[in-house]
């Protein structure tokens, strides 16, 4: 029990360090700004009965798509700073000398970035969707549909945070690991912008990339993109994309955790 309290204290201290002024303000401002500018004034005329479903789902997908690149960069930078800066400043040595397991230290550092960042982006998504589409008749629909953005964002942020923590632990330099993480994030985004004209039919398989898979999980779940041509890349159901993004979420996390708990050493 005492150990758990200590872990909680450690988590609070780490969150306070990572999200100190002006990081929280900048992250909220940036994510809110890019999200709100991706949403147009609600004005749709249809000939069918009143149905907010398609309008809300299109907006959630648009907001999530817009948020994805900044979240990739932010999660990478914050996790790099959290691990590599502590190493450079000698705080890691102090942390490892405390009566706390390496598992706890790793979990605290990871959770201190991933969970608040996910909650900030999801909270902003929910706020914008509620602000635009909340009416007496659509209240439940707003919360039901917005909820699905939460796991998608969590797994996406976990993937980049896992990658960033691996880079930070290997390079052990704040600036270097931050730059490498940002470049890796841009690279993962960049390859999804390549079209079949450039890459040929292989471009269709980019829907399985770590950047595009979370967005396609949402699109398939909401039915905003129809199943089209033959081939797995065009017909993978939503649960398939969810399995894929869960795999991506742990693909760097597990080796990084093993490296941190068994091989990682602090050298003077």
């Amino acid at each position, binding site marked *: 029990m005492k150990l758990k309290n200590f872990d909680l204290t450690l988590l609070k201290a780490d969150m*306070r360090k990572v999200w*100190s002024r002006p990081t*929280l303000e900048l992250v909220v401002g940036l994510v809110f*700004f890019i999200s709100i500018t991706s949403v147009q004034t609600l004005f749709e*005329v249809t*000939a069918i009965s009143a149905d907010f479903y398609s309008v809300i789902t299109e907006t959630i997908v648009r907001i999530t798509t817009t948020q994805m690149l900044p979240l990739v960069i932010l999660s990478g930078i914050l996790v790099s700073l959290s691990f590599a800066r502590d190493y450079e400043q000698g705080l890691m040595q102090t942390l490892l000398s405390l009566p706390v397991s390496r598992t706890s230290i790793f979990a605290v550092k990871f959770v201190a970035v991933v969970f608040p960042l996910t909650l900030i982006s999801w909270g902003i998504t929910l706020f914008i969707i509620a602000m635009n589409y909340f009416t007496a008749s659509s209240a439940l629909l707003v919360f039901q549909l917005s909820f699905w953005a939460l796991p998608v964002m969590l797994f996406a942020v976990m993937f980049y945070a896992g990658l960033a923590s691996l880079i930070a632990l290997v390079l052990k330099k704040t600036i270097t690991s931050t730059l490498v993480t940002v470049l890796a994030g841009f690279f993962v985004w960049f390859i999804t912008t390549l079209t079949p004209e450039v890459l040929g039919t292989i471009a269709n398989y980019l829907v399985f990339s770590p950047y595009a898979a979370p967005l396609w999980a949402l699109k398939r779940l909401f039915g905003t993109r129809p199943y089209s041509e033959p081939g797995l890349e065009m017909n993978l159901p939503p649960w398939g994309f969810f399995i894929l993004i869960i795999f991506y979420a742990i693909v760097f996390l597990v080796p990084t955790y093993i490296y941190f708990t068994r091989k990682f050493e602090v050298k003077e």
Partner: protein
Amino acid sequence: MNITRIGSVLLIVGLILLMNASSSHVSGRLSHKYGELDEGESLSYVILTAPVGPANMCIGLQTESASGLPRGFNKNDLIDVPVHMKFTDPNNNTIAEKDVITPYCFDVTLNTRGAYTVHVTNNGNTTTTMPLVIIFDFHNPDNKEADKYLLSIVLTALGALLVAVGVVMKFFLGEADSTN
């Protein structure tokens, strides 16, 4: 997290929202046409909208065709058609209901967020298209989202108040800043 930081986050969100809500508004002429309406047949247009203020709505206002023929000259783009129209707000209250001759234009104020409905029944003896045209003034500041604008002002004011209270508490009452 102390009161100053909560205030500064609210202030940032409020200012961004204020900038967004005061700059974006609907403008111009929007025309919608879905199929043709046979004799005695009904059609409903659903307008999902924010509270964007005053507009002029026209039922059966035919637009010029791509072939260059004047309005109402195409076989099924007729004017002077007797119709029964009913306009309801998002709470299903009837705002207007009457028998009219197309094109029929009337002023509306869209002041509630939700789905407005226009029901039209063709009382004539011919098949015709029944476009719905909604006309907003060109760049009229009244056509901004009223509720979003109000929310942005509330958030900005609340944020500024909390920052001010936090600063006062810190400098005059000696409360320590525990966040950094």
